[in-house]
């Protein structure tokens, strides 16, 4: 059973190829089963393999399946190999299962689109690439998957390519993640040069032997790996692409930019955790990046108007939590938060898609309202997801995972009270912006009227994800026991004055505080929020946070404008002058020659006479 591992990435890849080649000739009723079914089959195979793995674990709790040798050059022989352990199994399960639900949703969401088959081709290709990334035995294969998901992200963000702003958003996403990819590639070069292999398990072994803790090579390699992760996972300073990536269709935003692709960076760091434990400074850097990001994104989410941008900033913030966990050494907590986040974030995005579809493509939450009665299924599922995101105590999965991270930010070996405070503050912000969103959209007077209601293909995935968002938290125990075989468990180093229950209690209080403030400002007395924005300090803060703390403006001034200036200066340098000069010479000589052809007989006769005189003179005088 477990030898069917290679089917998991192959099935979506085959489906993508078929859709690319024949998709435009197939009717919609044939494209949807092919596109959705391939992911469904992948999910089924994954579930079977998972069952087999859990009941009958292979030796060392890891299974390697080498398919063939990719390149064979002197000393460098990367293979196409798949490596299955608890970490990759959990992630592949989530990717295929949530992917399957999102594909079902997309089958109805995109039904009216002209390029139906192209959409499913891209989505299937994405899932195939993501699974390749996750199951890759070799860092080179992981890089292949990494680049492919970047490509698919570009293709899907710019799916409606006829609108140039979508193309700009897609290019921005690709270029910004490319910066991260460069760091990742340099890291791979460094690792190969120093350690001689890129095969992950081999690499980890050789690194722990060759490099002492705190060595500069390990520090350099891990900082570069962090650079790559920061790009793909949209953390500071490369987080600017994710809010603009909301230009793509909503199922894309749900799949790629909430549940799966943006967690690739988290996976990378978790996979190479041995290297990170050899470089504590880099690991602290991961934690600091995570903490800063979750706060910045939280403040930005508080001021956004577009429902999808609020959720995008929320994603950036939650991945900040995952990075924070990785940074303090809480590996399993990070994976647990990934697990629950995939469910409730996908749920929130799919719900947002239902809402946007229903109110005729209106995106601003200030123009919506009172949708509680109109879209009941969407309301209850969205409420479940929102409570999970904000961390409603004991009921929702988000509470368990997020609060565990915050507690471990205090207690883990790499933990620090400042990180704990950041995490708590972030939790309060999360609750505040989530309920701002819910109160504005679902409560209050009716805003834009509802024109379309969702069908079953859109409602069923919402319900399934909502159930998972609620009960997922209870899977913490089994999940941790399962992950123990792949990731080291976290010891509680400094407990000190705070206990886990105490931390959870404070988090619960912050949840309620956020809920109450949101209720006050956005339902009971909406004039209060208007007054807050009208106040000069409030307005300045609002605009600054709305623009994402000015990162786009800084990048524009520092990178984009000088580049354009240099390109313009370079447009007419001396090499170009040579080529334009050739053209200009040809044109001038053409002008001269054509001016001799006047059509006047007298002119021709004169010129002929003068020419003959000249010839006679030459003959005479020579």
């Amino acid at each position: 059973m477990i030898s069917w591992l290679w089917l998991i990435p192959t099935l979506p890849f085959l489906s993508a190829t078929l859709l690319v080649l024949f998709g435009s000739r197939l009717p919609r009723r044939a494209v949807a089963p092919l596109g959705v079914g391939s992911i469904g089959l992948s999910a089924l195979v994954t579930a079977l393999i998972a069952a087999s793995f859990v009941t009958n674990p292979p030796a060392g709790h890891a299974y390697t399946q080498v398919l063939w040798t990719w390149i064979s050059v002197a000393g460098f022989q990367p293979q196409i190999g798949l490596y299955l352990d608890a970490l990759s199994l959990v992630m592949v399960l989530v990717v295929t299962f949530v992917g399957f639900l999102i594909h079902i949703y997309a089958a109805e969401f995109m039904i009216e689109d002209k390029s139906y088959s192209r959409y499913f081709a891209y989505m299937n290709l994405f899932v195939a690439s993501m699974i390749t990334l996750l199951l890759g035995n070799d860092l080179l294969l992981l890089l292949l998957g990494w680049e492919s998901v970047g490509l698919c992200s570009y293709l899907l963000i710019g799916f409606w390519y006829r609108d140039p702003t979508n193309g700009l958003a897609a290019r921005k996403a690709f270029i910004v993640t490319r910066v991260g990819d460069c760091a990742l590639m340099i890291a791979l070069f460094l690792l190969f040069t120093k350690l001689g292999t890129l095969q992950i398990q081999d690499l980890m072994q050789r690194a722990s032997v060759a490099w002492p803790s705190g060595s500069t090579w390990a520090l350099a390699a891990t900082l570069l790996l962090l650079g790559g992760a920061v790009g793909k996972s949209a953390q500071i300073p490369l987080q600017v692409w994710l809010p603009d990536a909301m230009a793509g269709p909503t199922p894309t935003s749900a799949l790629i930019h909430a549940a799966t692709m943006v967690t690739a960076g988290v996976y990378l760091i978790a996979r190479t955790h041995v290297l990170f434990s050899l470089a504590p400074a880099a690991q602290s850097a991961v934690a600091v990046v995570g903490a800063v990001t979750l706060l910045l994104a939280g403040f930005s989410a508080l001021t956004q108007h577009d429902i999808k941008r609020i959720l995008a900033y929320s994603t950036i913030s939650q991945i900040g939590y995952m990075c924070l966990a990785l940074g303090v050494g809480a590996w399993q907590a990070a994976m647990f938060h990934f697990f629950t986040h995939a469910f409730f974030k996908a749920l929130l995005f799919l719900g947002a898609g239902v809402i946007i579809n229903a109110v005729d493509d209106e995106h601003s939450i200030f123009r919506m309202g009172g949708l509680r009665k109109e879209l009941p299924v969407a309301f209850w599922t969205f409420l479940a997801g929102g409570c999970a995101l904000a961390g409603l105590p004991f009921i929702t999965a988000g509470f368990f995972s997020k609060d565990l991270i915050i507690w471990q930010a205090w207690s883990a070996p790499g933990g620090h009270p400042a990180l704990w405070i950041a995490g708590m503050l972030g939790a309060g912000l999360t609750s505040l912006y989530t309920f701002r969103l819910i109160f504005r959209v679902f409560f209050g007077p009716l805003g834009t009227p509802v024109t379309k209601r969702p069908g079953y293909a859109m409602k069923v995935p919402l319900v399934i994800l909502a159930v998972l968002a609620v009960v997922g938290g209870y899977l913490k125990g089994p999940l941790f026991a399962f992950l123990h075989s792949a990731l080291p468990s976290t010891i509680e180093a400094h407990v000190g004055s705070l206990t886990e229950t105490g931390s959870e209690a404070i988090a619960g209080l912050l949840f309620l505080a956020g809920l109450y403030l949101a209720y006050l400002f956005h339902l009971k007395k909406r004039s209060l929020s208007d007054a807050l924005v009208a106040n000069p300090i409030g307005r300045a803060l609002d605009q600054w946070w709305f623009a994402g703390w000015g990162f786009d403006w800084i990048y524009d001034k520092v990178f984009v404008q000088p580049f354009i200036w240099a390109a313009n200066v370079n447009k007419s340098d001396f090499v170009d002058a040579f080529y334009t000069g050739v053209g200009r010479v040809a044109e001038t000589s053409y002008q001269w020659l054509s001016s001799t052809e006047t059509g006047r007989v007298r002119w021709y006769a004169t010129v002929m006479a003068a020419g003959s005189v000249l010839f006679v003179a030459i003959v005479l005088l020579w």
Partner: protein
Amino acid sequence: MQPTFYIAGGVAVLSTVLMLTRLNLVHALLYLIVSLLAVSVVFFVLGAPFVAALEAIVYAGAIMVLFLFVVMMLNIGRSAAVTERQWLTPGIWTGPVVLAAILILEVFDLARGASAGLGTGATGPKEVGIALFGPYMIGVELASMLLLAGLVGAYHLGLRKTEKPEMQRDTGIDEGRADTGRDLVLAGTDRSARAT
């Protein structure tokens, strides 16, 4: 012989210059005829009686008469004189005079080295006939084909005279068209195609 040669030569040059500077078309033609006859006399003095006769009969007789026919037919003597007066400013003679002066100088330069001896004895029609039907046979055939082509071309070009109404319509169409430059050459062939 010598004085006849110089007088006839002088008459030829003078009458050609006069021909070039006349305003009236018919006067210029008559001066040209005089010039050709003078050249015929020169030929006779040089000992080529055959071409002298040929020049007088064919050139001055047939070709110039053809010119006269066309000029009389177009009947533009008076109006042409008026326009010629407009066009013939003294300034336009500078270019041709300069070029001609250079050419004359070159001719004198070339002629300096040659010995000046007029040949005695005439080369009569008999020698010319032998030469024509001997080595120059192919030239004769080619010339006859050229004359045939000229004959047929002139015939067709002239044929439009009998199709005046059609020609009127054609010029109407031609003026309606944007590019009319092609008609100078194609016009005749088009109409001849329609005629046959």
